[in-house]
């Protein structure tokens, strides 16, 4: 039982060769581990250095490639570029009207040979330098284009970089080096600084510099925004006109923006109310209301997805009320944009059975205290908010008064309203402390207009306020304003109501 021979048979035995092999394996594994660790460190170091370097690393000889050199001056930009062999390429400078989805007309185009080159762009983009754009290839002057001192009258306040879009209209085999869109300077005099905001889908003046095949043509960009590749957060509608944009802070109200008027904040906010003959209503007080769903058609389940068609100048979108309660009204409203009516948006109850139970509907146009609406116009007649209060035309109800305008609307109603200020309200708010904190509209002063056909039997009214919102007993500086313009409309006829916003004359 205790035989030492049997015990020895369980003791592991190693030959010199197996020990050497084991040592070799451990050494090899350690060497591989260390080499791998070193490799990772060096890859990171190389990537960091490469990001700082202006060297061009070409991964595919058959494709255009570029690497921008570090900027060393405000008015120069340089790139190292690679031009593939076997195909003719041009360096093209396009100058003119431009936007994020528009290539400007080619101002100059020069052939560029296959191989590696250095391209430098000089930007003399000020009135002082007559908007001069100069391009050098390998240090030699290739393009020199001057647009003239008055190319952008009044100059520009900011410039934003344009990208080369990933959509069919843009060639994916081309390579953009630079693109810029200029926000025109809105000058309201010394000490009256105007802070302008918009997005790059607005048509402005600018340029693009890119490498491309010599004769490729680019179509004129669609005036609409809302196609598959367009960013939905910038709204749908006309790029330079009114766009519908949902607002999470105000989910019931319809909000419209117009960035071409130098602000991205809502220009119009409408709260609609719908009344059925059986007493059912839908308004911002309806608890079961969830959201407005944007669709391609009155009866559709999929989200809005416009198809780009250059021949199409009119696009529609449908707002379907998503209400939890089956008994509640679920109206569908159609919005219409027409490229020939760039300042307007059309609204109507969609011609669909979902709207059949609706007897009347109301459009409440809100935010008069943000715009300081103080003048209402019907053809030749103008009513000021102060006049409405002082003359007793507006029936008081606490700090608010209601002005019934039914008597003024005969036939097709056309009503205009605007502020009494000619200066942008952001300047007023900044320069006059009594306006501070009112959160006034940031864009250019506007005239609003609504056209309602007589067939809708419109009943118009307005609410006048004399106190600042959220601050009871604090009078509004400058007097009363029309806080809300209201239109009661019959629902039987499905005619269009047109809303217009345009800069004040």
């Amino acid at each position, binding site marked *: 039982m205790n035989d030492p021979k049997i015990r020895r048979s369980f003791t592991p035995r190693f030959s010199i060769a197996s020990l050497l*092999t084991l040592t*070799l*394996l451990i050494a*090899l*594994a350690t*060497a*591989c581990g260390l*080499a*791998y660790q*070193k*490799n990772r460190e*060096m*890859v990171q*170091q*190389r990537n*960091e*250095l*490469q*990001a*700082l*370097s*202006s*060297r061009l690393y070409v991964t595919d000889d058959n494709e255009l490639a570029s690497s921008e*050199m*570090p*900027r*060393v*001056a*405000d*008015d*120069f930009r*340089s790139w190292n570029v690679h031009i593939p062999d076997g195909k003719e390429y041009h360096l093209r400078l396009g100058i003119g009207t431009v936007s994020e989805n528009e290539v400007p007309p080619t101002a100059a185009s020069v052939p560029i040979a296959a191989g590696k080159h*250095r391209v*430098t762009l*000089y930007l003399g983009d000020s009135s*002082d330098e007559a908007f001069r754009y100069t391009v*050098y290839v390998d*240090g030699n002057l290739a393009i020199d284009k001057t647009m003239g001192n008055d190319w952008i009258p009044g100059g520009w306040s900011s410039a934003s970089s344009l990208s080369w879009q990933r959509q069919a209209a843009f060639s994916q085999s081309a390579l953009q080096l630079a693109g810029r869109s200029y926000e025109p300077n809105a000058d309201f005099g010394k000490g009256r600084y105007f802070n302008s905001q918009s997005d790059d889908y607005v048509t402005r003046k600018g340029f693009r510099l890119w490498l491309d095949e010599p004769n490729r043509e680019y179509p004129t960009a669609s005036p609409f925004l809302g196609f598959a590749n367009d960013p939905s957060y910038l709204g749908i509608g006309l790029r330079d006109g009114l766009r519908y944009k949902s607002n999470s802070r105000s989910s019931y109200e319809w909000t419209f923006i117009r960035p071409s008027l130098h602000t991205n904040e809502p220009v119009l906010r409408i709260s609609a109310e719908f009344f059925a003959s059986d007493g059912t209503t839908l308004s911002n007080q309806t608890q079961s209301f969830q959201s407005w769903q944007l669709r391609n058609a009155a009866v559709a389940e999929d989200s809005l997805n416009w198809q780009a068609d250059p021949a199409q100048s009119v696009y529609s979108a449908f707002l379907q009320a998503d209400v939890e309660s089956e008994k509640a009204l679920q109206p569908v409203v159609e919005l219409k944009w027409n490229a020939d009516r760039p300042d307007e948006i059309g609204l109507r109850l969609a011609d669909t059975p979902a709207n059949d139970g609706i007897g009347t509907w109301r459009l409440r146009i809100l935010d008069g205290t943000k715009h300081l609406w103080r003048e209402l116009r019907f053809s030749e007649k103008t009513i000021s908010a102060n006049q409405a209060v002082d003359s007793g035309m507006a029936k008081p109800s606490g700090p608010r008064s209601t002005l019934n305008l039914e008597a003024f609307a005969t036939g097709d109603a056309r009503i205009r309203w605007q502020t009494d200020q000619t200066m942008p309200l952001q300047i007023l708010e900044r320069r006059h402390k009594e306006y501070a904190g009112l959160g006034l509209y940031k864009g250019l002063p506007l005239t609003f207009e609504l056209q309602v056909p007589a067939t809708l039997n419109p009943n118009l009214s307005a609410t006048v306020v004399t106190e600042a919102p959220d601050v009871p007993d604090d009078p509004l500086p400058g007097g009363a304003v029309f806080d809300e313009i209201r239109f009661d409309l019959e629902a039987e006829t499905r005619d269009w109501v047109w809303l217009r916003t345009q800069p004040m004359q």
Partner: protein
Amino acid sequence: MNLLARLFTCLFLLVGSIVFFRLSIDNRDLRSRIDQLEAELGRMPINNEDRVYFAEIESPNVPPEVASNIERIWQFRCYFPPGYDFIRFNGGGRIAKEGIYHSGGSSSGWNSPRQEATHKLFTVSIQRKANQWQAFYSVDGSSGTTSWSSFDADHFDAALVIEKIVSSKQGPRSFDQNTILPLLRIYDPRSAEDKEVAGKTMATYVGGLFVLCPKTLESEFGQLSRGETPTGFESDRIATVASDE
């Protein structure tokens, strides 16, 4: 069993040798690429990842068609540690020989701090445009230009004093994150003028400076740039000059 173990051992040795061979070749190529890039950008080993590093690039890569339009250019390779939050300042007018006193036009800005460490280039150039000196900087995708109108010379002459906190001759330098970094200071010693600043007389000169300041020292920076001395502020929190040109 024995045969299987030998087979596995041979296979391990073979695969290990191939992997090691491939990694060695890859590492040699990487080393060569890194050497090329460091020849262009300068060598800057990061020994303490919590400090800010600068190295001056001796010969910035500037195309001749651009260089002919620029009076002077300086370029620095920078390492910013994770979370490093700083203000960029570019001012021209009257400055002092030391500190960051400044009187005149200026521009400043800042980016959101990054969670990860970043390697960047900081470029500064001086250009004569519309009969004025324009001072340009570019770092981390941001750039700006300020007119240094107080300089009335037609060109940057040898008499001007140019001071940097890091020079290509001395090699890279690292700084604590809480240090104010007057990266570049240029002044004309011939333009000395005594001024009453914050209750004391100070010699001021026509010039300009580029400063990186930790965001945490923003209020101290404001006081220092007005010539005041913040309570309890130690002068060694402003980086010293590396060398004169």
